[in-house]
Each structure stands twice: as C-alpha cells, then as structure tokens.
C-alpha cells in the first residue's frame, strides 16, 4: 500500500471518533474500584472507632493527603496523555499532597504529645500499611494504565509512575479509614513507601504498555 492509498483509507475512517482519554480513564477506574473495595472489606474494614476518630484533625488530614495525591495524579496523567505535553509547569501539582503532609507534621510538632516521636512514626500498623496499600492499588493501577493507553504519552515510564501514584492515592484513601495510626509522621513514612512501590511498578509496566 503506498502512502497516498493509506491516506485515502485514513480519511475514509475520519467519521470514527474515539472517546476522550479522561472518559476512558474514569470508566476503567469505576470498573476496578469494586475489586479494591472487596479486598478492603474482606481483609481490613473501617476501624471501629471511626465516629470519634473523625473529630481528630490528624485522622481527617490522612484523607486530605491521599485524595490530593489521587486528584493531582489524575490531573497530571491526563495532561501527560497528550504527546506534546511535559511535566514542566504541571508537575508541581504533585507537591500539593507533600505540602499537606509537611504542614501536618509541623502542626503535630507544635502540640503536646503523649507518645514520643519515634513511637508515633513506627506506629502499630506499618506492616499492614505496606502490604495493603500496594495490594489494593493493583486493580486500580491496571485500570489507570488501561485508561492511559488510550492517550499518547511521550514518556511512558513517567506516565506509568503517575498512574501508580493515582492508584496508590485511591487505595491509601481506603486504607486510611482502617488504620488507627493517625500521626502525619506515620503517614509520611509508611504510606510514602507503599506509594513509591506502586509508582515503581507503574513505571515499569508503563514503559512497556504505554508506548504507542
């Protein structure tokens, strides 16, 4: 087939219009969410004292951080799904959750605490946190990668890592309602390690499947 012939067939196919990347990504995440919810309710469940915990600003801060991570990762990944886009000018969105955490840590430092710093940092649930966040992330990561495959990211590994941040942010939101460690020091340590793991998996798979 010579190039003029190819162009003729492409023009004939012009009527077929693909869905926007954001729409496909949203559908994929909605399809995967029940799997992560199933893992959550089967293995973890909401902590029993959730009603009193909600009055603790550090409990609420966990959700602000994880949701900010998920939201900024969604925004950045949609931006990066355009071939001419780069992280420049957009990457700072990813600093929002980190900024919230830093603010939380300084806030906690200024208050009188019953437990010493290292105890708060190590907490009681570090292992559960390190396992649960990546585990609940996996279905969401698969969905995010599926959705972003619809786009055309110029740097597939970067886009994959951000898909990992998105999945981890959503999974950590679920996990936060189970975990009784509310100290921002705990969140900054263990949530971050779990999230970094998912981002690394995302980068690895993304570098293969997000090429177009």
């Amino acid at each position: 087939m010579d190039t003029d012939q190819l162009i003729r067939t492409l023009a004939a196919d012009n009527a077929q219009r693909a869905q926007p990347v954001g729409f496909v990504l949203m559908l994929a995440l909605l399809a995967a969410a029940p799997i992560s919810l199933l893992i959550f309710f089967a293995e973890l469940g909401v902590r029993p004292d959730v009603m009193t915990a909600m009055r603790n600003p550090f409990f609420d801060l966990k959700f602000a951080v994880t949701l900010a991570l998920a939201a900024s990762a969604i925004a950045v990944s949609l931006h990066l799904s355009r071939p001419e886009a780069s992280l420049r000018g957009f990457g700072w969105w990813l600093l929002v959750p980190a900024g919230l955490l830093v603010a939380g840590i300084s806030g906690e430092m200024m208050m009188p605490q019953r437990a010493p710093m290292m105890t708060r940092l190590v907490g009681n649930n570090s292992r559960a946190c390190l396992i649960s966040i990546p585990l609940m992330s996996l279905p969401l990561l698969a969905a995010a990668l599926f959705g972003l495959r619809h786009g055309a990211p110029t740097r597939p590994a970067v886009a994959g890592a951000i898909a990992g941040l998105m999945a981890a942010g959503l999974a950590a939101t679920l996990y936060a309602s189970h975990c009784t460690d509310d100290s921002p020091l705990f969140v900054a340590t263990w949530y971050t390690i779990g999230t970094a793991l998912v981002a690394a998996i995302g980068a690895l798979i993304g570098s293969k499947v997000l090429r177009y």
Partner: protein
Amino acid sequence: MYVHDFVIYRSGRNELKDRPNYVVGARVREREDEWTGLMRSAISGDSTAYHRLLKAITPVLRAAARRGLARAGQPIDQSEDIVQDILLAVHSKRHTWDVNAPFAPWLFAIARNKLIDALRRRGKRVFVNIDDFAETLPGETQEQTASASEIAAHLNTLPARQRQVLQSIAVDSASIKDTAAKFSMSEGAVRVALHRGLASLTAKLRES
C-alpha cells in the same frame, strides 16, 4: 493537486533557502496555521479537510524521516515505512489533540516519538531534534520515491473481510458506499471493518 501542496516545486530546488530568515519563518508559520485550521475542520467531521491535511503533512514527515535515517547511517529507502507509521499514529491518537492548541507541536511530538522508535528498532540510538520537523522548509520536501513494505505485510494477516474493505478503499479508491455495494454489506459494516482493520494494523506496527 491541491493549493496546499505548495511545498512541492517542480524544479525540486528550494527557492526559499535564498530568502531572508523572516520570510522562511513566516512561510512555516503560515503552513502550520493552515494545518491547525484543517485539523479543526477534520475533527468536526470534514473528511476532505482531513485528507488535505494528511497530504500536506506527509512531505514534511518524509523529509524528517529521511534526515533521521541518514544521520543514523541507515538507508533512506526505509523512510516510507516510518512515514506510514507516523500517519497511522496521528490517525489513532488524534483525539488527544486539543482543538484550541496549535496542531504542529502535537504532530511533531508524535512524529519524533515514532522516528526515535523506528531508529531504535533498527538498533540505532539517535538524538532526534524536534526542530528536524519544524525546520523542514517548504520546498525542501520531495514526493514519495521509496516504497513501504511493513503495512503491506501486515495487511495479509488481517481477516479477509477487513482486508477486502481496506484494499477496495485504498487501492481501487472506492467510496464507502461503493465498497458496501460491491461486497453487499451495509455502509455501517464497511465503516466498522475499515476502522477495525486500521486499528489492528496500528497495533501490529506497534508490536513489530
């Protein structure tokens, strides 16, 4: 030949090279604005504008592909496969173009990505500058001389119906309507077969 094919000169000589830079820059900008206009019409359903756009960008892509191959020390007769690969990617990813953004940066990003990929597959690591595309001057570009083989090879692996529909439109330049009549299919079925055929050609090129 369309008015938009002003990039091709019969003499093959680049008349713009002797002009001052600002004239060349203006011509390149004018060309890119025209592409953006055509792509907007294409997205709103104008297939003729889409056809004109693809015809207009092809010589620029071809010149850049040749330059990339030459710099990598590869024979330039493989340029047409790269051009077709880029055109298929442009087609399958056109929903990622923002209608309010200029078209050229989007196009060149896709083209650069595909060219790097193609050179890498041939075992060459080459830095491809985006300016290779942007700076291709009107007049520097040539008609197709090399032939492409990759798509033709993959075409034979498609299901019979998809292949027949693609060939009818590509080779016999039949319309969707004529193709539907020829194979006693509905026009909708022809459109679906065409779309699936192109999608699986795109997927096969990505895997290879």
